[in-house]
């Protein structure tokens, strides 16, 4: 009975070992992505992939919030869109250099998420979803109505210098090279979130998600950890917004609209938010399915609605989760 510690160290690899393993996978994944970019000649396919990875990062933020906090957000487009507008507005008025604008684009939505989080993470369950939908849409309404600041419905194009952080800006606008950049960022973020999730902080937030009350009665503050998860998830989302703006060089209130939040949520659910990489996987499926469906039918929206319903009812761990489960059974453990 007393040798549980040694048993444990045999069963689960120690944390540094697990991290080395995860880092190894990440490096391989990065080169596979770079290889795809080198091999695929089609601009169209690469455009699709680049969009999928950038939006996949947004979905990763949404999924991480579900995974660690059990909170389903319908408002993450706000953090994404604020990042987009932060760069666009800073560049438009020539207030700061592009590099600083990018830093601002990461800091502002993250800070907003933190302060907003202090209020909204206390609101449990379904009410949180309703609230994020409404709060997210408030930013959209603002961008629509404050024409003299945001240009209103029409949006405006973003003027970027010829190099940013010493990288030629053209690299961000070519789908082949931008795919490699976005994919690299995506891999690094997934690796980072994996380390967070397996850290004591990650395990604590998972416990709070499981049972908030008991977490308090074993001695933990439960509001701040959840606020920090929301903040981190907003930061990831802001990174997606930055990539989008560099790639697209155009912003309009669409980047703040709740239908974008909804799409990101659908990607996260389809891919399976229990896996850190699940939402990104869901995004790739989403974009390719949309492209294929576009050739045969005009009813993509209804199709994705039905897919969402089917996944919710039949595959509660998402496609990624189901796939991973099948693989694990194949390999013969777990």
């Amino acid at each position, binding site marked *: 009975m007393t040798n549980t510690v040694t048993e444990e160290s045999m069963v689960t690899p120690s944390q540094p070992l697990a991290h080395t393993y995860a880092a190894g996978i990440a490096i391989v994944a990065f080169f596979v992505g770079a290889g795809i970019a080198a091999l695929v000649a089609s601009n169209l396919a690469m455009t699709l992939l680049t969009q999928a990875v950038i939006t996949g990062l947004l979905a990763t933020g949404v999924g991480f919030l579900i995974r660690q906090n059990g909170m*389903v957000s*319908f408002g993450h487009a706000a953090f994404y869109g604020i990042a987009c507008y932060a760069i666009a507005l800073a560049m438009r008025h020539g207030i700061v250099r592009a590099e600083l604008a990018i830093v601002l684009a990461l800091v502002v939505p993250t800070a907003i998420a933190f302060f907003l989080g202090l*209020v*909204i993470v*206390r*609101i*449990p*369950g*379904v*009410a949180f*979803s*309703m*609230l994020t*939908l*409404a*709060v997210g*849409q*408030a930013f959209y*309404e*603002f961008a*629509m*109505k*404050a*024409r003299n600041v945001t240009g209103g419905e029409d949006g405006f194009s973003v003027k970027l210098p010829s190099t940013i952080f010493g990288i030629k800006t053209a690299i961000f606008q070519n789908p082949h090279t931008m795919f490699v950049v976005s994919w690299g960022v995506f891999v690094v973020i997934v690796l980072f979130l994996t380390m967070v999730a397996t850290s004591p902080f990650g395990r604590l937030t998972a416990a709070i998600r499981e049972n908030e009350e008991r977490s308090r009665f074993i001695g933990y503050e439960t509001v701040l950890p959840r606020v920090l998860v929301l903040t981190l998830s907003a930061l990831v989302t802001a990174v997606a917004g930055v990539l989008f703006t560099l790639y697209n060089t155009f912003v309009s209130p669409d980047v703040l609209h*709740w*239908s974008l939040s*909804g799409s990101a*949520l659908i990607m996260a*659910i389809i891919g399976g938010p229990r896996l850190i990489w699940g939402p990104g996987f869901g995004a790739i499926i989403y974009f390719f399915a949309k492209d294929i469906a576009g050739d045969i039918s005009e*009813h993509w*929206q*209804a199709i*994705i*609605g*039905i*897919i*969402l*319903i089917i996944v*919710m*009812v039949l595959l*509660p761990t998402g496609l990624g989760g189901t796939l991973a489960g099948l693989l694990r059974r194949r390999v013969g453990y777990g």
Partner: protein
Amino acid sequence: MFIQILNGLAYGGLLYIVSVGLVLIFGLRRIVNFAHGSLFMIGAYVGFSVAAIGSFWGAILIAAVVLGLVGALLDISIFRPLQREDPIVTVLVTFGLLLVLEDFAQFVWGKDFLRMPVPAMFAGSVSIFGDSFPAYRLVVIATAALVGLGLTLWLHLSKIGLYVRASNADPLTTAMQGVDTDRVSIIVVALGAALAGLSGTISAPLLALSPSMGGYILIESFIVVVVGGLGSFAGAFIAAIVIGQVHNFGLVYVPWAATMFPFVLMVAVLIWRPTGIAGSHV
């Protein structure tokens, strides 16, 4: 000034009728229907189509009946099978339904904005304290008042109404009272959907019809029920009336920021009371 209050009242009244559907379902099943705004939208379109060939009152009636049936179907096919799941499952499934219904409306009625004319008998204006006021808005206020009154009476006097109120206060104990929840639920969900359909038709002459109008009204009614306190009829009523006024005065005096006011009000209320005005637990 008084005219502005009336304008706000018309909007607030409509918001209340839409939001009541959410309150009813939440009270009974502790779930939130994200497709509720789409029911409003379909109601507006159905009303539009019927009014084009028939009378305005016929349009209201048919929209309410059609949406009531949709509601009953919704309860049987989605809410009941999912009642043992986490409420968030129902949220996501009804979100999927929202997408399907929007696509459906776009397929049937097209993408472009449609306008439903104000019924001829209410096309004019009336004079109130010397100011002219569109007669149709008075009809809207009167209808909202009648529906609100009828609903309050129904909740307090009918057996189902009593059950719904009791369930709002304490779903667990009420479920043990031996009432057939499934039967009550069909009626309640159908009623909520019918009210969404009815308010959709009544609003149609005041709004531009588009498949995405459901999302807008969904968010507005969420603000109402979150501010009012989930599951509270009185809270939703107060919130709807206040938001109607705030919205309208914003439009008149600070038009560029008007759409922001309800959101600001919501966040302010939540900082003050995380469970909303009526403060029941979620």
